[in-house]
């Protein structure tokens, strides 16, 4: 599903070059559950951004579902993100003016799905994450755990093959966090590839494969 070979990401900061990633190779199979762990600044988010096609490597090759991602135009990358990737962020990143249903519909809007079909799919997904009684609520009318559930439903809207979760429990209390983890694991058992970024070893251990990053390298 995901193959990275010797991927580097460099940032130029004046005269200095920061190596956010320095030659990372990894392989993630379809349906896998992989966690990426490492101290702050080790390159976890950079790696996630490249996997999620938000960013492209400076060096090395990245193939998503056997397709090379290098050299894709900004619009092609947007289409790949839309159809193949679902993002779950630490701070949820729901649009505050839209209600839960509309937030979940958003990726389908960009996929060009007609409004009726969109609504039906979004309702189904909110039902799936246990929020069928909160569809008309706006993010600020929901608890942190509920917001993250909406975000997960949104990530699933286009039935992507890969779910990328960057510290998804970082802003939640332990109990809610563990409920969210349960939900993500359940989705993984149903076939979605799950990539989890965390700095908590207990969470990382729940994955089938653990990738440890240190200073931009796989340790």
């Amino acid at each position, binding site marked *: 599903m995901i193959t990275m070979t010797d991927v580097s990401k460099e940032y130029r900061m004046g005269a200095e070059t920061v190596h956010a990633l320095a030659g990372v190779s990894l392989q993630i199979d379809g349906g896998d559950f992989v966690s990426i762990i490492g101290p702050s600044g080790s390159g976890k988010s950079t790696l996630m951004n490249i996997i999620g096609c*938000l960013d492209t490597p400076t060096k090395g090759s990245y193939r998503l579902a056997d397709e090379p991602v290098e050299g894709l135009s*900004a619009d092609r990358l947007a289409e790949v993100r839309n159809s193949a990737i679902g993002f779950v962020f630490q701070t949820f*990143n729901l649009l505050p003016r839209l209600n839960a249903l509309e937030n979940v519909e958003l990726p389908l809007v*960009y*996929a060009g799905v007609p409004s009726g079909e969109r609504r039906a799919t979004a309702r189904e997904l909110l039902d799936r994450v246990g929020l069928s009684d909160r569809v008309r609520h706006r993010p600020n009318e929901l608890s942190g755990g509920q917001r993250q559930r909406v975000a997960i439903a949104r990530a699933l809207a286009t039935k992507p093959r890969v779910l990328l979760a960057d510290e998804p429990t970082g802003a939640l209390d332990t109990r809610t966090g563990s409920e969210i983890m349960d939900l993500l694991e359940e989705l993984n058992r149903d076939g979605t590839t799950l990539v989890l970024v965390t700095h908590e070893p207990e969470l990382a251990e729940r994955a089938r494969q653990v990738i440890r990053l240190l200073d931009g390298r796989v340790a």
Partner: protein
Amino acid sequence: MGRRSLWESMRMSGRSIAGSPVRAALTALGVMIGVASVISLVALGRGAQEEVAGGLQQLGSNLLIVYSGEPRGTALVRTNTSNIRPTLTETDLETIRGLPADMITYVAPATTANAQLKYENRNTVSTVIGTTPEYTEVRNLRPAYGEFFSESDVDSRSSVVAIGMQVYRDLFAPGTDPVGQRIRVNGISFRVVGVMEEKGDAAQDNSVLIPITTYQRRVSGDSNYAMIAIQAASPDVMRPLQATIEEHLLRLHRLPSMESADFYVANQLDLLATVEGVAGTFTLMLASIAAISLVVGGVGIMNIMLVSVTERTREIGVRMALGARRRDIISQFLTEAVLIALAGGLIGIAIGVGGSWAVTEFARIASHITPISIVAAFGFSIFVGLFFGGYPAWRASRLDPIEALRYE
């Protein structure tokens, strides 16, 4: 962009506008004021133009006037010619009368002098015009009371007078019937046969008209005319007619060219063209002032849209992560700018139309709303939205998704 995605953009923009209605209203205000001023100033300009042109038509239609002497000023009608030595002869008049009927409808000679009027113990200063009944046709004059003098009055050199409305007011107590009363014109007794309708032209309203023959016999003694007023058969023949008249009179007066002529022809077409030119420039000036305010309104939109893009950087990042392409972001912000500009434009059109109406209704200032100015204002507000929303929208679409997502 498909119909569906345009609809989606409009829904999203509607959301965003509804989310901060006060800001949207303030943003639209600039375009609103711009459009309102375009509409109302152009309406006022057009109104002024039509009023002046209408006033010119009031003087008479297809009007040519042959004057004695050299060209003076640009006035078409000179009611008082007392300072001109009359050079137009009976032969000149007959020659002009003899021109074909498809060129000339009416011809009337006229000569004028200052006049001291007296009725009972009231006095007024006026102008006396000696002419023929055809003068009323040429100059578009109609009696309000009584009637104008007749051809037989001209033939018999009757001492009859038709007075202007202002003269009537100055000499007679309100409600008095002047017809049949005798007034003195420069000491000579005349019988009033009628009062002419008010023209709004002070010189005309303050004049009195008597038969040309009576004038020549009793007022001046000169057998020449100061002017010959002509109504051409149609606007198309006015220029050829002017040329024909000049040619004939030059020959009769034994003169080589118009440069040395002792007469000249004033043509209503020239005056209309001048007036419309001036009024057109005036309208254009008003329109450009208004257009500047529309541009200022557009800059206001650009400013707010740039602020809005910055504020919504994170939202843009999220949308990009979820699969929004650059064109989706562009169309979202562009649609928002156009909707705001259009709303401002529509309200501006309403205010402009209402304002022009009110100015005409309550201040009696002429205005004329032309459909083209409404269509233009409408189109212009869409254009302003596209043009001034374009850069902010482009900026939004060029954001780096990662940077945008990290933006606090």
